[in-house]
C-alpha cells in the first residue's frame, strides 16, 4: 500500500522551474533516501509532501488525502506527518518538555498528562530524558536534533520526513542522530530522507532516489543503486564517485 504517492509534480519560482514532473511512491514501512547535488530540488520535493512548499502541477496523495486539493485541511494532514529539519527548529523560548508537548496539546487536543507521558517516552527513547527541563540552547546540535525527532514522533505520525537531518551537525554528532534514525527504520516507520549519508542509505534504505536539476533521475532499489553502478546515469555516477571517494 502506498503511503506517499507523488504524481507528476512540477513547481516554478516565477519563470524558474525547480521541480520537473517528479513521480515516485513511498510504500508503508518503506525507507526511501533522496540524494543529489545541492540545488537539485530534493529539499523542495520533500517539503511539497506536507505542503510546506506549494506546487503548481501534479498531485501528492498522503495516506489517501490529496495535498494539492484546495479543500484539504492542511494543518490536519501535517499533524499526521512528522518532519525533521536541517537546523532542528526546536522552539528556543520553550523548554524541552514544552517543545515535546505543545503541538500534542494544542493540535491533537491531548491532555497535559497524556502529552507529557508521551513526550517523555520518546525523549527517553532518544536517550535524553535527563535533559527534560533544559532549554534547546543548552543542548548540543546532535541532542537538539534527537529532541526534534522525539517531538515529531510524539505526534504518532504515519510517516516521517527528514530534510538533511545531519548536514548542520558537527561530524562527531552525526552518528547519534543516525543511530536513532536507523532504529526507527528497523521498527518499520515509513521514512523519506533527504541525506548525503550513504552509509545510512546502504544500511536501512529500501530505495534510493537520485535527483538532478529538479528531475528524478534515478529511482531504484538500494542493491541496484549501489551494486550496479555501471547501469546508473552519467550524472549519478559522477555524484557517487565524488561522495564515496573518501
Amino acid at each position: 500500500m502506498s503511503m506517499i504517492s507523488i504524481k507528476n509534480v512540477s513547481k516554478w519560482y516565477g519563470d524558474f522551474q525547480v521541480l520537473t514532473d517528479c513521480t515516485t511512491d513511498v510504500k508503508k514501512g518503506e525507507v526511501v533516501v533522496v540524494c543529489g547535488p545541492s540545488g537539485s530540488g530534493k529539499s523542495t520535493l520533500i517539503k511539497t509532501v506536507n505542503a510546506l512548499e506549494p506546487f503548481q502541477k501534479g498531485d501528492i496523495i498522503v495516506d489517501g488525502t490529496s495535498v494539492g486539493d484546495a479543500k484539504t485541511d492542511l494543518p490536519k494532514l501535517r499533524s499526521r506527518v512528522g518532519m525533521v529539519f536541517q537546523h532542528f527548529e526546536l522552539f528556543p523560548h520553550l523548554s524541552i518538555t514544552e517543545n515535546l508537548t505543545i503541538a500534542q496539546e494544542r493540535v491533537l487536543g491531548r491532555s497535559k498528562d497524556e502529552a507529557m507521558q508521551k513526550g517523555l517516552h520518546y525523549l527517553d527513547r532518544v536517550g535524553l530524558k535527563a535533559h527534560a527541563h533544559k532549554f534547546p540552547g543548552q543542548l548540543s546540535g546532535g541532542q537538539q536534533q534527537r529532541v526534534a525527532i522525539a517531538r515529531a514522533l510524539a505526534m504518532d505520525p504515519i510517516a516521517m520526513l527528514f530534510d538533511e537531518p545531519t548536514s548542520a551537525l558537527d561530524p562527531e554528532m552525526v552518528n547519534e542522530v543516525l543511530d536513532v534514525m536507523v532504529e526507527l527504520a528497523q521498527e518499520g516507520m515509513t521514512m523519506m530522507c533527504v541525506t548525503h549519508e550513504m552509509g545510512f542509505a546502504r544500511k536501512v534504505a529500501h530505495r534510493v532516489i537520485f535527483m538532478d536539476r529538479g528531475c528524478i533521475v534515478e529511482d531504484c532499489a538500494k542493491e541496484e543503486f549501489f551494486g550496479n553502478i555501471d547501469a546508473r546515469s552519467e550524472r549519478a555516477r559522477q555524484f557517487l564517485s565524488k561522495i564515496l571517494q573518501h
Partner: protein
Amino acid sequence: MDFSQIIPAMPGLVDGMLMTLKLLALSVVGGVALGTVLALLRLSSNPLLSGFAKAYVNYFRSIPLLLVITWFYLAVPMLLNWITGSFVSIGAFTSCLVAFMMFEAAYYCEIVRAGIQSISKGQENAAYALGMNYGQAMRLIILPQAFRKMMPLLLQQSIILFQDTSLVYAVGLMDFLNAARSKGDIVGLPHEFLIFAGAVYFVISFGASLSVKRLQKRFAV
C-alpha cells in the same frame, strides 16, 4: 529662584503624573495591540490587507501628533454628531487616548513587523509541520520570540511616548506638565515649576532609557 512652593503643590503634581502614567500605560497596551494587528496585516499575502496597513502606517507617520490629538478632540465628536444627529461627548481623556493609540500603532507596527521578520522561516515551517494553523503558529511560536527580541525597541518607543503625552495640554487635559504649569502660574513661579517638571521628565526618561540598555545587554548574552 524659590523652589519651596513646589512642596505644597505636590498633591496636584502627583495627580498630574498619575494622569500621565495612566495615559501612557493604556496607550502602550492599545498601541502595541493595534500595531501587532497592523504588522500581521502588513505581512499578509493579501495585497488589499497589506496595502491598507501600509497606507495607515505611512499616513500616521507623516502627520504631526499634535494634529491627531486636536483632530480627535474636535473633529470626531462633530463627525459622530453629524452621523447620529445627537450630541455625543467623548471627553478629552478618551479622545487623547484614542489619538495616542492610533498614532503610536503606526510606529509599533514597524517594530513588530521587523521583530516577526527576524524570526527564521524555519520556525514557522516547524510550527506548521506540527499541524499548527496560522493563528497558533503566530501566537505560540513566532510572536513570543519576536516580542522578546523587540522588547528594547518597544520600550524605547514608549519612552518617547511618555514625553509626547505632554501634548495633551492642547486639549486641556491635566497631565503632569500641564499641572506643573498651572500650579506655577497660580503661585506666580512658572519658571521654578517648569524647571522642576523638566527635571522629573529627564530623570524618568533617562533612567528608563538606561535600564532598557541594561536589559538589552542581558538579552544579548
